[in-house]
């Protein structure tokens, strides 16, 4: 589980498309909303994994919208048990595979990547204990949190991932409320504190980065965790066509840094230059619209927290730079100039 980091290339988009055509793992026809970030996350990840996969899905948008009995969008083995226990259920499957290999009931060369998909409610909140146990036991699984920052499936209720001042259906605006008055939990840091071999933050806006992280997670001989920011037009108050643009603004403002923690060593994967003011992220969404009216103090607080987050991340990343020195492409290339940049209406 230790040793120097090995370079992992992202899957080329042409190869990804070819994989999707030859062996479709996640099919269309599901009921996820127009502009939902989740299917982009799921397809990018599943198409980036070279081995067969088994998927466990926590209760949530993805589960409900893709497996309405008797239909399914999944062309891979898929299990849903409940909301708070996806990590535990996958632990059982992974343990079963080891037990059956030991008994000689299945061939040991059969490499399977065990992928969990769960939302922020099922991960930050009700599933945190189950996730913690699975990380601690060291199962070879990839846990993907598609983080859309609230309980979107049940109508946009606040979760532990909901950012400060966001309007949700359980943190409505009122004479004595400016929306969610709690700061969001730093789940990625909590997972990293388990000292698992691979932890990363990614965003639906950066699919090459997400693809590379999925591949690295699949190669990791132990628990791997991806926290992927996933836009929700319905819950965030954005247009379906802006799904990628809005998430990119989270990255460009430093609100949602793209970084990874390999064997406890931190590396920033993308440094926005210049880092845009956080208002660019806030003003792109209806759930923060009330902040336009004379709430500079809250915006200042959010900006200060983002700045502090960056400062700490840069410090850690600089201190761990030696660990990645051998790796080609240690300094991530600047974003492709021809790609659609952070352009907001």
């Amino acid at each position, binding site marked *: 589980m230790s040793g120097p980091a090995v370079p992992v290339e992202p899957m080329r988009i042409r190869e990804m498309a070819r994989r999707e055509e030859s062996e479709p793992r996640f099919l269309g026809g599901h009921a996820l909303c127009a502009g939902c970030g989740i299917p982009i996350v799921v397809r990018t990840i599943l198409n980036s994994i070279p081995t*067969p*996969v*088994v998927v*466990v899905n926590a209760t949530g948008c993805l*589960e*409900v919208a893709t*497996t*309405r*009995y*008797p239909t*399914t969008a*999944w*062309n*891979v*083995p*898929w*299990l*849903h*048990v*409940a909301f*708070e*226990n996806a*990590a*535990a*259920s*996958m*632990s*059982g*499957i992974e*343990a*079963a*595979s*080891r*037990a*059956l290999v*030991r*008994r000689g*009931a*299945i061939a040991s060369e*059969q490499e*399977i990547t065990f992928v969990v998909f769960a939302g922020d409610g099922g991960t930050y909140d009700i599933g945190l*204990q*189950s996730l*913690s*146990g699975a990380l*601690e*036991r060291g199962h070879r699984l990839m846990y993907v949190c598609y983080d859309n920052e609230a309980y979107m499936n049940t109508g946009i209720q606040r979760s532990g991932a909901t950012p400060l001042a966001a309007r949700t259906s359980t943190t409505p605006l009122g004479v004595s409320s400016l929306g969610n008055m709690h700061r969001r939990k730093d789940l990625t840091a909590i997972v990293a504190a388990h000292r698992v071999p691979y932890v990363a933050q990614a965003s639906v806006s950066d699919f090459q980065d997400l693809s590379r992280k999925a591949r690295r997670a699949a190669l990791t001989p132990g628990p791997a965790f991806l926290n992927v920011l996933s836009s929700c037009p319905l819950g965030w108050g954005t247009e379906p066509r802006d799904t990628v643009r809005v998430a990119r603004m989270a990255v460009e403002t430093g609100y949602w840094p793209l970084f990874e923690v390999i064997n406890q060593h931190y590396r920033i994967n993308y440094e926005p230059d210049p880092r845009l003011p956080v208002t660019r992220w806030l003003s792109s969404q209806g759930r923060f619209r009330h902040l336009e009216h004379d709430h500079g103090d809250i915006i200042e607080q959010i900006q200060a927290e983002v700045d502090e987050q960056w400062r700490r991340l840069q410090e850690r990343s600089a201190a761990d730079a030696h660990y990645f020195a051998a790796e080609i492409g240690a300094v991530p290339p600047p974003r492709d100039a021809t790609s659609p940049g952070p352009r907001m209406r």
Partner: protein
Amino acid sequence: MALTAAPDSEPVWRAKHPRTRLLTGAHAAAEAMRQMDPDVVPVYPITPQTPIVEAFAQFVADGRVHTELMHMESEHSAMSAAVGAALAGARTMTATASQGLAYMIEVVYIAAGLRAPVVLALGNRALSGPINIHGDHSDAMLARDSGAVVAFAENAQEAYDLMLMAPRLAEHSDVLLPVMVGQDGFTITHSAEPVETLADEAVAAFVGPYHVATPLLETAHPVTEGAFAMPDSYFELRCQVQAANERTLEVWERVAEEYAALSGRLLAPVDPYRLEDAGAVVITMGSAAGTIKDVVDRLRDRGEKVGLLKLRAFRPFPLPQILGLLRPGQHVAVLERALSPGAYPPLFADVASFLVRDHDVRSFVFGLGGRDLGFEEVEIAFEDLKQPAPSPAPIRYLGLGKEGPV
């Protein structure tokens, strides 16, 4: 019976008979699990189940089983991992008690609905609050409507035997449900008794290999398990669980006969004791049956025509078996150690639901939180059956003293 110390470090004694040992119920269950050698055992410690997992962990540490022992962070996760493992293609067992079953009960329902044949050893214990670690059947009643098969052992021998029968019930293609084998906390889990065990090879042959039709690990044949059921399908799917649980009675009878041929012990869904000409009958479950048999013997010695009908199966409820053994006109006392506050207690409600027309059925609650059931209390129940039947039948409490419930 002359007993000699075991030669190895096992927490057991070996009797003269090479296969009769002095075992607690917990160690008997662990020994049965060792012999069955399950693929995966996800578990979380809780009194009075703990000696089961401790003894089994030693078997794992000593390399005597192939099992993947999973140290879970809660019972909820233990049952969740069990469902995953069982559907992945692995024979899976776990153990719990009381609050642990309460915590995992959400997933017990799901295990039944997903048709995951998980075997669960239950050290029956009272539920909080107030907190209490001793034996009663409140915990098992949480699983009553889950779809799981719920069985009760009378003693350590039955705990061992029922554990060996459990995978044969759970995994039968007509069943495919979780099976819980209950043994009363401390009274059975921590009390050592002579237990006759089978040879390892005999157990392996009896239990056979694990098989699921569509294991999740078979990636070439992907299946979707646990899909979202709307009003157009949920009703049918839950009714399939109902039908499977009902079919378990027949499977149980057949498996019990097969097991009897192997062991000489018949563990039918019900166990009649001196019922033939009995005018007064006690119906009960669990370890109290031993005490009640003694009282039946005493009263029979005095010429009273009394008997006992012990249920090993609570779910499925052994209705045809009970009807086949009782006669109209009998006076029946249901003795149970669980409540359903605001209504008749669960076992009485089940029994009365079909006996009430032709029988005089009365409700007695005893032993909550591990309170002992003495001969005197059982005699009170039999004495009560000689009195005219009050209507409606009141709930009587045995062992509460003169005051009765406050």
